[in-house]
Structure formats: C-alpha cells, structure tokens
C-alpha cells in the first residue's frame, strides 16, 4: 500500500473467520454439516441495523474487497474502486459485509480445507455448490450478524447472479438489488469457455483427479491456462489493442498507427515458438499470478456454479415469474464493450422485471474495458453508482 493510507481507503482491514454448525442442505441433495466463512466488514452498523450492504463476489473474488491487509500488501482488495469513504459504497454511510463463498480458497471451507469426517483434504469430494447454496449460507451469515434486512445486496458478474437469487428467494431480506455486468444465465458460448478452462485443469498431469494436495503437487499449468482463456473473455478487443498498442517496440510504425495491439516483447520476431508479443507475456503473467493464489478445485466448482445458474428453473423458464414475489428495487448496469455478459443480457433481466411490474432502473455505460469494467473506475458508472446509493443511504440512515 502507499506510505500513508489514502483518504478514501478503508485502510488496514482484518478478516474474520466465522464458524457455522447448522448443517447446510445443498441443491445437489448433499449437505455440509459445519463450515467456516471468511468475512471482512467495513464501516459501522447503525443503531437500527438498517445500513448493511452485502457484497457478493464473482468467479475469482473473495472476502477481501477493499483496503489492505497490511502495509506490505501491494494491491488493495478487488473492489477498492467502489468501496471506501466517499466512494459509491460509502463506508461512512454503510456497514459493508463481504465474504469468501463456500467452496472458495481464501479461508472459507472449500476443497483445500480438511474434511473433519476423514481428516484429509476435501479435494474433489467437496460437494458441488450452486448460487442458491451460497445465498443460503449468506442468509446464515446475515442471522449471525443479527441483520434483519440488507439495505442492498450488490454484485457484479457471478456476484450479480447471487443478488438475483436473493431477490427471488428472500424478497423481504433486501431493500435494493444492484446487479452489474450480469446475465440471467450463461449462454452456450459462456459455458464453452468454462469447459475449456475446466479441461485445461483436469488434463494437467499434476491434477491427480483433484487429489493433488495429497500428492503434494499442484496443477499449476492447468490453472494458468484456465485463467488465460478466462482473462481474454474479460477484456474487449479494443481494450487489448489499447493495452498492447502503445509500447516502444512495435514491429513497424504502421502496426502502432493501426493500433492492433501488436507490441513486441523484445523488438523483433523470434521465428520460433518463443513469446513474441506483449499480449502473450501479459497472459502468461496473469496466469502465473493467478495460479499462485487460486485453488484448482475451487476454480472447477466456481465455473460449475456459473454454468448451473438458472433462476427460471423453478418457474417454467419464465424469468418474470421468478421475480413475481420480489419486493426490492433493482438497479442494473451493463457495459457497452462487455462481450462476456453484453448489455442485451442485462436487458433480458430488465425486461423480465418490467413484465413482472417491478421497480427497476437500468444504465448502459459506454466503456472500452469489456467485462472487467465493473471493477474499474469508469466515471459514469462510478457517478451513477454513487448517486443511487446516496438515495439508499438517505432512506436507511434517516
């Protein structure tokens, strides 16, 4: 972190581990008898306990959404652009709760935890968890924190799907549902990318059918590949052109002028299988970094949760019927260059909410950064997010 804590940062934060003894019956029919959830909170719960906001994380996120764990931590939490004093999710006004979802690998019970029944790592035996199961465990967390109703439940991407599940299954427990860069369910293309990621992991010789921890090894190459393919889907073509089209060593001046993002790594082509272009080494770096912190089995579970998510499944395929009992107000925001969950996918949700006669606002933000835009300080997005939550604060803090 910077030498002094920035004014709009929550500063140094300490995660907490909460233990739950009530068994959790899962969608699959299996159950988990007891589990831990790793959480972080920012801000102060008001006397009426009405100003709590739940943050749901996406595929690779965790409980560390804002601030720094120590002075040595180089980067803040994953949503630091949006959480902090004076930021959209203003910690001067709200009590913010973020958790690492069940099945995660940042401290909550997951495949890399030890199964108390067997004394060895869960590994591939950890049950498949769905968005519905996560939200169920988040309800248990809510009760433990003695919060009766969230001022808002907020999430982007897979996080937004959890928000949707909250609005559908626990309508009285939230006032506002804020979903960013979301889709009602994955398309075949989305599932296809997830399957490539899963195959990369399971095909790694070090995967050992998911029992790599017992073998004292790790499918690093597979996780790297999975992340690399995933990462491409988070960026847009134009974001990549920008990112890799301005360095000092293009092939020739035209390649910069055309801005194809073809910056070279060393200044010349290798005419071999070496890494020639910046984008290649960037992907390698991203994959490498990710493989150091993320568990392979967790990655498999998270992508499955994404694939399985379909809120219409109990409602004969009708999304508007799914929302029939929702009583919260909705805000959706999408980004123009997001091709993973493009604006049309958000519109499907908006239209279903309109059909169901719900209160909904929707913004389509012009942004070049692709799906990742929801994590970035895109001015109009930040401004609208702030404006909306200011209203929410007026409602719950008055």
């Amino acid at each position, binding site marked *: 972190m910077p030498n002094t804590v920035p004014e709009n940062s929550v500063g140094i934060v300490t995660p907490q581990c909460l233990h739950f003894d009530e068994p959790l019956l899962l969608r699959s029919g299996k159950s988990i008898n007891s589990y831990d959830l790793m959480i972080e909170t920012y801000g102060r719960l008001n006397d009426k306990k009405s100003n709590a906001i739940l943050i749901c994380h996406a595929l690779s996120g965790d409980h560390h959404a804002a601030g720094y764990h120590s002075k040595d931590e180089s980067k803040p939490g994953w949503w630091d652009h949006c959480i902090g004093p004076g930021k959209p999710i203003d910690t001067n006004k709200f009590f913010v709760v973020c958790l690492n979802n069940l099945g995660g690998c940042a401290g909550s019970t997951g495949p890399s935890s030890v199964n108390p029944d067997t004394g060895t790592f869960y590994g591939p035996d950890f049950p498949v968890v769905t968005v519905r199961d996560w939200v169920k465990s988040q309800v248990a967390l809510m009760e433990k924190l003695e919060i009766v109703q969230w001022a808002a439940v907020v999430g982007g991407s897979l996080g937004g799907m959890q928000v949707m599940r909250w609005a559908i299954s626990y309508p009285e427990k939230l006032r506002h549902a804020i979903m960013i860069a979301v889709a009602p369910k994955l398309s075949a293309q989305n599932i296809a990318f997830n399957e490539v990621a899963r195959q990369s992991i399971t095909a790694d010789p070090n995967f050992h059918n998911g029992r790599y921890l017992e073998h004292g090894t790790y499918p690093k190459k597979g996780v790297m590949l999975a992340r690399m393919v995933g990462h491409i889907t988070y960026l847009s073509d134009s974001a990549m052109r920008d990112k890799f089209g301005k360095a000092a060593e293009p092939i020739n001046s035209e390649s910069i002028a055309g801005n194809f993002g073809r910056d070279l790594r060393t200044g010349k082509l290798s005419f071999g299988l070496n890494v020639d272009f910046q984008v290649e080494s960037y992907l390698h770096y991203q994959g490498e970094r990710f493989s150091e912190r993320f568990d392979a089995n967790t990655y498999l579970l998270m992508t499955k949760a994404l694939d399985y998510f379909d809120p219409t499944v109990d409602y004969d395929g009708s999304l508007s019927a799914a929302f029939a009992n929702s009583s919260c107000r909705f805000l959706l925001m999408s980004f123009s260059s997001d091709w993973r969950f493009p604006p049309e996918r958000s519109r499907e949700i908006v239209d279903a909410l309109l059909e169901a*006669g719900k209160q909904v606002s*929707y913004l389509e933000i012009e942004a070049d950064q692709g799906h990742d835009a929801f994590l970035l300080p895109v001015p109009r997005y930040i401004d609208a997010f702030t404006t909306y939550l200011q209203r929410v604060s007026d409602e719950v803090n008055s």
Partner: protein
Amino acid sequence: MMRPDLDIIQHWIEPGSRVLDLGCGDGSLLKFLKSEKEVSEIGLEIAENNIRLCLEKGVNVIEQDLNKSLQNFKDKSFDTVLLTQTLQAVNYPDVIIDEMLRIGKNCIVTFPNFGNWRSRMYLFFRGRMPVSNFMPYEWYNTPNIHFCTVRDFDELCRDKNIKVITRTVVDHRHRGSWMIKLWPNLLGETAIYHISR
C-alpha cells in the same frame, strides 16, 4: 414550480397506478406523481445527465431510446403511458402513438401547438420557420422534427380510431380561457390529450 401542463395531467392519473413516462427528462413529473399519487413509475430517457437526475430523485429510469423500439414492453402492462412535449421530437410520431396505446390502458400526450397564431404570424410576416423562447432552435439544428397543430393531431386520432377522452388546450401561461376553447388551434400554445383505444 410544477409546469402547469403537468398539473393538469396529474388529475388524469389514478392513485397507485403504474405509469410509464417516455422521455422522462429529469424525472420531475414522475417524482411529483410518485409523491402525490403514489404511482409505481418507470421513466425512459437517453440523456446521461437526465438519467443521473432521475437516480438522484429516486425515480426509476431506464436507459432506452424510444425511437428504436418499445417492443420490450408488454401489451397493457402500464395503466398510463405519458409523452410530454416529446412527440414533435420523435422519428415516427404515429408509430410511437400506436405503441403507447398498445402498452398503456390510457395515454397522455402533450405537444406545442404549431397552429398557434404566433407561429402563423411569424411564418406569414417573416417567411421563416418560427423561433421563440419555447422553440429556440433554427430549422437545421432543431430536435423538433415533427411539429404539428391541434387540428393535425385531431386528424391523426380520427384516422387511427383513437378515442380522445379529454382534450385541453392552453396558452403560454397554461390557462384555458373560453376564447381558447372556441379557437384552440389558433390561440392554444400547448395541447394536452388524454387518449385511449
């Protein structure tokens, strides 16, 4: 202060009804209807600043261009659909009116009356497209591409078999005198129609 044409409109809105405002601007009307009539409101808007102002007021707003399509709105999914001072700025006014009547059980349309004597005088004496405080644009840069008169709109309603529930025409101070009732297309500046199928 409430725009007087909006004050007239509110009497036609059922308390607690669901209202869609096409081109809702900064959300003032919907906010007013929300607090006075407890309506469940949705506004459509494309101007970024207006969208922000709606969010600031706590008015539900959807970023959608009403010139493109309203097909995402189901038949009779709203009690009242509003189009205030926007008709003259849309690409296909007749299509919008049809869509409004499809989506809403009843509709309210307000527009500046181009048949007003001031416009007639301006065109007659200067031979140029009228420019005024209310219509401050030149012909080439105006967003108001489909001006019409009270008589034109009456004609459209007749052609399309649209039922005019109430027609109110007011002057620039938004008063409706007996003279305006007598010569609405000549003296009226703002036309306010309450219509249904």
